[in-house]
């Protein structure tokens, strides 16, 4: 009796808050100024990339620096297919190409762990960028492309939809048996394989799922940028940001990366046009401080504060 009341209240209150938030977000373009809509679109983009990154890298502890590749593939899909197909179809195709690319990279890197995996994923996205740049300068003689523009509100709604789907996917993967398998891979890969988990398949598919959302976000974001070239689409910062944002927010809870990404995306929007160097400087300082003093991110700090120092035990499970 006590337990059921506890669980129902536990789900009811956050459920209600989420519902109200969703309604507020869905009706936002009706009452908020255009600037807020654009700002939130950018924030959603970072949250999608960061949560997408955390789906794979959070539990498995494989730090991927290939986010720029998956995001850029989405951007370029939109730039090439553009108006030829309906918007939703192009976004799905961009996401699927990222999915397949990630599956391919995932199966290529089976034997690579730790540092080798990190530098391989970084190398592959830089390879794609430079190969594309070379192709555009030497073969097609056209560096960069114009992307047709879409109404701000429409971009906002599509980004919101991808955002909700990403969060739901992350939530259900986390809660499922599949999520437990991922956790055990992160804890000890050999042991996980011995318990009957198909480590290869689980790793590869999860990596691909996380890439799917990055590709989708890239595809819709391209319509807001209007002009793209390989340096913009495959900007290595897109690979670094989710890592830093997720760590700053804390990966112990699903809302950690969301908060981390939201804070940085907001800071970026207000600082980057006026003080770009100061923004990146602050970014670097916060990163170093977070690594030094917030090993479990903001979430860890909140839990420590609420539970009075029992966070250590929680972090080790």
């Amino acid at each position: 009796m006590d337990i059921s009341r506890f669980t129902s209240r536990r789900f009811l209150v956050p459920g209600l808050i989420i519902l109200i938030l969703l309604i507020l977000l869905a009706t936002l373009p009706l009452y908020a100024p255009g600037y807020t809509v654009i700002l939130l679109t950018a924030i959603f983009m970072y949250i999608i990339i960061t949560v997408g990154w955390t789906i794979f890298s959070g539990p498995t502890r494989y730090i991927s620096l290939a986010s720029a590749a998956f995001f850029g593939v989405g951007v370029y899909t939109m730039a090439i297919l553009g108006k030829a197909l309906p918007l939703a179809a192009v976004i799905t195709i961009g996401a699927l190409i990222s999915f397949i690319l990630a599956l391919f990279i995932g199966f290529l890197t089976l034997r690579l762990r730790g540092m080798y995996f990190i530098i391989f994923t970084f190398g592959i996205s830089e390879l794609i960028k430079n190969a594309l740049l070379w192709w555009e300068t030497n073969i097609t003689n056209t560096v960069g492309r114009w992307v047709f523009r879409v109404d701000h509100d429409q971009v906002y709604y599509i980004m919101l939809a991808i955002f909700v789907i990403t969060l739901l996917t992350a939530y259900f993967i986390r809660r499922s048996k599949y999520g437990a398998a991922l956790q055990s891979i992160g804890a000890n890969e050999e042991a996980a394989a011995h318990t009957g988990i198909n480590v290869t398949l689980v790793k590869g598919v999860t990596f691909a799922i996380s890439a799917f959302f990055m590709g989708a976000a890239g595809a819709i974001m391209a319509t807001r940028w209007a002009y793209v070239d390989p340096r913009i689409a495959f900007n290595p910062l897109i690979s670094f940001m989710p890592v830093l944002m997720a760590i700053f927010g804390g990966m112990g809870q699903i809302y950690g990366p969301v908060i981390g990404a939201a804070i940085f995306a907001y800071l970026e929007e207000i600082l980057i046009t006026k003080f770009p160097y100061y923004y990146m400087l602050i970014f670097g300082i916060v990163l170093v401080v977070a690594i030094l003093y917030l090993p479990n991110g903001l979430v860890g700090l909140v839990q420590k504060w609420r539970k009075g120092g029992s966070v250590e035990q929680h972090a080790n499970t």
Partner: protein
Amino acid sequence: MSIAEGIFVLVTVLDIVIAGLIMGGIYALIAVGLSLQYGVGRVLNVSHGEFIMLGAFATWSLYTVFGISPLISLVICGPVLFIIAFLIHRTLFQYLRDTSESIDVFEGNSLLASFGLLFIIQNVALLIWKANVRGYTYLVYSVNLGGAVFTVNRLIALLFAVVLSLAFYIFLTRARLGKAIRAAAEEPEMAGLMGVNIKRVLAICFGLGALMAGFAGVLVSMLYQMQPTMGLEYTIIAVIVVVLGGLGSITGSLIGGFILGLIGSIVTYFDPALSLVAYYVIFILLLLVKPTGILGK
């Protein structure tokens, strides 16, 4: 093939080889520095290139403002960067090493902390020197080497790159401190028991890495134009060379630097725009086929 054609081929080959040795010498210098930081200290320092950038810009300022020769800058920049990096390791990385539960966790954390350093150093440099492309001319008169023409500054850069990396290699294999460093790389705990002051040795290694980067930066500034954002590209090349030579193998990095420099020079001869693509292709293939590199364990 006539004699004239034969001479032309020979000169072209000489041209490619010397250009490759110049690039290779600088790559070797950078990679040995990174290899020392990672191989001994387990810090994959992605801010390595920023120290190269600092060396290059300090040299530029000293030369254009105070008229100090770049060769004298070598003696100034190297030690200053050594001290800065030594202190960074003593505070930041040593703290991480003490608080990380395992060496793998430390590797991840130190990589991320060095990303933070990258952003900090690069943006401080952007505030000081602005985003402009800079460069200066120093000893740019040509000499003729058996038909191939080179400018003096490139030959000096080659000479210093080769001499510095060899001197460093001899220091590691012969000097007492060098032996302590190698002991710390092989068996940190055992070396500690044998009386090696591990904390000091690790900080010295990190400092020496920055020293090599600083030297490379001075040489780079003599040859190419520079921007405060140039660091990452050098870091990437250093990482590729270190993997090529085998993660943690200093001899491997030395050899790997020259191999990559020569490959780069050959590719540049056919299509300069392809050299970076070629590096990445080599890198990716290497990681897939033989991730331990040419001299890795």
